[in-house]
């Protein structure tokens, strides 16, 4: 498909190179969304909605940034990103599982708190620029293929890791014992409970691990893009896009990957069109595109969702209380 796309571009007389670069950077930009969405799938499959993805991403970004700034160690930076986002997810787990709080409000609280904390601790390093830790790797023999080469085989190491992550998460959910327990808890906690599965343990574990995936996405933003820390625009709402993507992908990790890349392309459209010297489109309108796309996609999905066939976990959003069943 990509090949025919390339030949179309070649014959249409458009500068192919610009579009290939655009597509390649779309793949890279998709990664934080992908990691966050895969984490949210794990979380929601256990029956807990965590709307706090944006907050966890922000905490992951700031923790990874501060750690990398202080230590110059990519590994430590990643660990810190994971732990910070995981800690925030743990708060959500405690509120929603132990204290049976409203999951929607708790998720929103996470976003507000996460944004506040990241701005608060990030204030001293505002505007500071760091160098990207992960640079692009060329896969020998493949990277000089036309189109496919730069898009798929000339990326940073985490892009290749992400493929492994998606495959392993899909395998874990569908083909392993703990994955079966996870699905049972998300579909029918009462049945899982009767089977001797500890509903709250499974939920705690997946909410926290899901949060850590968001933290990985945050660390990616720091370690690959090497952005200047900017309080307002570091994540630009991609946490919310990740949430919508989970619905779009019917809670399946494999599908999320393609959706994420489509959004990566939309998020980069601004730069790609600039590169292609198409400037009659206002930058602000292009910047709206990913969000417009999300709304349109979500509405389209819900119109076609006759009889709730999308595959949302049956117990999604409902607390499980054995005593009050």
């Amino acid at each position: 498909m990509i090949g025919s796309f390339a030949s179309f571009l070649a014959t249409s007389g458009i500068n192919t190179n610009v579009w290939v670069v655009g597509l390649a950077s779309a793949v890279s930009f998709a990664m934080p969304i992908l990691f966050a969405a895969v984490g949210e799938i794990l979380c929601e499959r256990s029956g807990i909605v965590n709307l706090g993805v944006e907050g966890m991403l922000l905490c992951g970004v700031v923790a990874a940034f501060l750690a990398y700034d202080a230590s110059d160690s990519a590994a430590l930076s990643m660990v810190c990103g994971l732990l910070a986002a995981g800690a925030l997810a743990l708060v959500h787990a405690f509120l929603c599982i132990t204290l049976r709080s409203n999951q929607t409000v708790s998720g929103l609280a996470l976003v507000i708190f996460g944004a506040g904390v990241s701005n608060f601790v990030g204030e001293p390093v505002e505007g500071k620029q760091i160098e990207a830790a992960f640079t692009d790797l060329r896969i020998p023999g493949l990277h000089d293929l036309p189109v496919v080469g730069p898009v798929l085989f000339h990326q940073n190491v985490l892009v290749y890791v992400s493929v492994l992550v998606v495959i392993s998460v899909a395998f874990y959910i569908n083909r392993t014992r703990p994955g079966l327990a996870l699905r049972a808890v998300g579909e029918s906690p009462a049945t899982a409970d009767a089977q001797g599965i500890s509903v709250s343990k499974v939920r705690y574990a997946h909410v926290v691990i899901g949060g850590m995936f968001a933290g990985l996405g945050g660390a990616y933003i720091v370690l690959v893009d090497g952005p200047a820390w900017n309080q307002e625009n570091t994540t630009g709402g991609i946490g919310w896009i990740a949430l919508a993507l989970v619905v779009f992908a019917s809670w399946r990790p494999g599908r999320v990957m393609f959706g994420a890349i489509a959004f990566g392309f939309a998020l980069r459209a601004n730069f790609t069109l600039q590169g292609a010297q198409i400037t009659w489109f206002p930058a602000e309108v292009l910047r709206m595109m990913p969000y417009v796309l999300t709304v349109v996609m979500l509405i389209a999905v819900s119109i076609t969702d006759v009889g709730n066939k999308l595959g949302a976990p049956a117990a999604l959003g409902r607390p499980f209380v054995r005593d009050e069943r």
Partner: protein
Amino acid sequence: MRVASIDVRLERRLAVWRGTALLVTSGSLLLALVVGGIFLKLTGHPPLDVYRELAKTAYFNWYGFTDTLGASTPLVLTGLAAAVGFKMNLYNIGAEGQLFLGGIASAWAGIAIVPGMPGPLAVLTVMFAGALGGAAWAFIPALTRAYFNTSEIVTTLMFNFIGLYLMQYLIQGSYSYWRDPKIVGFPQGKEIVDAARLPHWNFPADSMFGIAFPPGRTQVHLGLAFGVIAALGLWVLIERTRFGYGVRVTGDSPAAARYAGISIRGSIIVVMLISGALAGLAGAGIVAGQGYKLDPGGLAVALGYTGIVVAALARSNPFAVVVVAVLLGGLRTGADNMQSAPDNLKIPVAIAGMLEGAVLICALGGELFRTHRISVRRVPSNSDREEHLSGAVGVGVSP
């Protein structure tokens, strides 16, 4: 009887004492301050001194307190916007974007249609335009939620970003009707006419009620009156009308509402539009009361998101919204004023956002203790177990 283990569980309270709500709210405020204090300590600030200074500059000084009232004016309205949705379990987190659109619409009205109108009519027109703009921005999420059950959470949130970029396009990205063509440097909005501006309250020159006020103009403007009237109106609508009754029933049990023949779709759309209009009114208040022009920087300060915190802390009660808005408005004013504090007390402005989040988390966690109580039971050891077993079976049944 020997005790083998201690069994801790939560039991639903049979009756909820009204005071418990207040107790839980103050408890969560305190806990949030402790959480904030930990972060302050970690970043090398003395928490107690910071809090004391913050409270002093925000509440216990005439300029500070009137600044706080000014800052809480939009929060009253965005708080009400979130609260009216909460009444029927609708989560409009798009107050942010609806506020932007309210700002855009009111600025347009203030430049285009108001000139020539007498003062009161001009003010009303501008505010009405703002409410209309906000409602319009809530319209698509409202329709799709009502007819296709599309999550209003995600759609309203996406509209926040769309609204933000639209506003930036109008001022920074183009020579639109809203942009002042005479200013060549930093792009700015065209000013609205004088008649449409909300009057500010000035400190009385002489002492009043035996209080000697400082001289000068305050940040308190007529928008606050719009907020209080809106709170009153919302209370009447929800608690005293047939429509409000339907909303409350739908919030408690959509099934019951359906059996009672209440139009759930209609309620969803109307409630979302009211919510959007309130948020739009907040935007209009900022344009007509503070900036006198469409100013993306002045509007995009997370007032919509804070409104959610206000509504949740106020437990969706319109009058409590006003009180909580003043409380959180003070937090913002205090954080701003701290920027001119001595070095060791100079803290990032983001302290306000962090504390808001912490308060919300703590209040949410505390909610359970309002409706439930912790019961600690000693579980007898083996020798006594037989006779208690029958009792233990009963645990599986709801209390």
